[in-house]
């Protein structure tokens, strides 16, 4: 099975996001699964959130419909990072799993960011998920799902600590991590925090970790660095394939 992960921009403009995702899909036609960054269709903390307007919601469902049509027509499988309004009417920060064009599962981010100073971070935009999600993306091949802070609980955004959600996926063959965490400037200490969490948990659980991060900052502006790596880590905790340190890139690995 071939898995690709995309390091790509995540704009607040949903039409640009749709075009970017379709470009990625068009350039990975021989891949069985593609993972995209957090918020890669909706935008991160924009368009699909508690305060989104009816117009924004309609535009979101329009681009989602276009993407789903493309996936159906081309029988593509994708783990799509996006904000999404669920049937309960509330917005969630999701990874949506489409298998050969059909939606099979959706994971809601659990460790939404917030601060100890009263700032609510992502709570201003989304409701938190309550459960972990393991998906069988191929026969006898299961993946766990984590979105950004779920994977590393950055201290200043996680006053309640890190529950190590990875422990819910100890039996999974692989974990998909979809991220969007770049700020104004590259911070190598924080980059190491993110990378080390991915590698150490991969090694501890003896599983593949596939990570996809944005090349834009959290408001959608391009930056010339990434604050978290994209690529595929093996069960020994070492990188098998890694995207470049900046700009759009795709890493693909054939996993037996």
């Amino acid at each position, binding site marked *: 099975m071939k898995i690709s992960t995309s390091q790509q921009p995540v704009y607040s403009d949903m039409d640009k996001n749709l075009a970017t995702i379709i470009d990625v899909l068009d350039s990975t036609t021989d891949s069985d699964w593609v993972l995209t960054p957090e918020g890669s269709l909706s935008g991160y903390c924009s368009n699909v959130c508690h305060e989104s307007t009816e117009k924004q919601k309609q535009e979101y469902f329009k681009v989602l419909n276009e993407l789903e049509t493309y996936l159906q027509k081309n029988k593509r499988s994708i783990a799509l990072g996006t904000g999404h309004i669920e049937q309960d009417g509330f917005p969630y920060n999701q990874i949506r799993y489409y298998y050969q064009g059909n939606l099979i599962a959706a994971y809601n981010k659990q460790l939404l960011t917030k601060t100890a100073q009263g700032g609510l971070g992502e709570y201003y935009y989304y409701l938190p998920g309550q459960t972990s999600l393991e998906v069988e993306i191929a026969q006898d091949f299961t993946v766990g799902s984590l979105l950004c802070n779920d994977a590393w609980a950055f201290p*200043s955004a996680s006053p309640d600590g890190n529950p190590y959600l990875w422990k819910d996926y100890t039996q999974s063959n692989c974990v998909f991590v979809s991220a969007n965490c770049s700020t104004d400037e590259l911070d190598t*200490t924080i980059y190491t925090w993110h990378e080390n969490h991915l590698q150490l948990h991969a090694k501890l659980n003896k599983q593949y970790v596939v990570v996809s991060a944005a090349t834009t900052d959290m408001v959608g502006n391009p930056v010339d660095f990434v604050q978290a790596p994209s690529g595929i880590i093996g069960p020994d905790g070492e990188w098998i394939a890694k995207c470049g340190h900046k700009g759009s890139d795709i890493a693909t690995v054939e996993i037996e």
Partner: protein
Amino acid sequence: MKITVSQQPVFKELMDNHACTLDVLEANKDTDWLITPECSISGYCLPPTLNNMFNVRTTQVQNSILKIKDRAKELGVKLALGSGIKDNDGFPYNAMMIWDNGNLKSLYKKRILTRGWEGGGERHYYLPGHVPNYFYLDDEQTIKASSMICNDFWGMPRVAPEGNPYYHHELAQNNVDVLFVSSNCNGEEPDALAKVWNENHLQVFAREFAMYVVHAGSATSINHMETNELQCASGVIGPDGEWIAKCKDSGMDSVTVELDILPRYKVVKASGHIFKRMGDDEDFD
């Protein structure tokens, strides 16, 4: 204020630990504070422990601690001493004792004892503590400090299945300036990812909470054997997250740092940081 970090071996033999700690004390008699590794007197997971408390060794550990704190008093050195202890409730704890002028000023008992998925680890040797400790480094009571022991700080996932509660938040909210961390975490096999995990945790938390982090790790393995593969550097990290002084990569060593603690303030705008200190931010006004 001078603070000395001792990266020293933690032996199985109590008298070796006693002699080693006294040697370190004599060699650093000009310092204000000396911090030693986790279990540097008792040995790591050696009596007093849950299944072995009422023996001669427990008494010997108590006597050793008393002699070391008396010598520290004579030299005018304050101690952050890591050791297993038998506390007043009669149970064993993995502790950091804060000795000031011969008095036990504060006692911290390790809270996140190591254990695997199915138990074991330090839970077989000690009871966990439940509360943080706070004390002042200076007589004027202007520099607030606290303690953590090894896994309390970095919650290594394979031995902290319940996660890391980030006790650091609580300490930061209570205006801790300096965090003393003692550890004993060197495995038999080197683990490069674990070393990055431990050191990166020290740096990130120091910076995010604008604390000085003072870390004293063992120069031996958790089985009291010689090792050249230390799983975390010992030394002092500033509130910018950078090392101010670092012990050498292996073997016994110590570093002394003179700290001038700058006032701390909360960062108002949204940022990766929660706190900063005056002087480390050019834009502060």
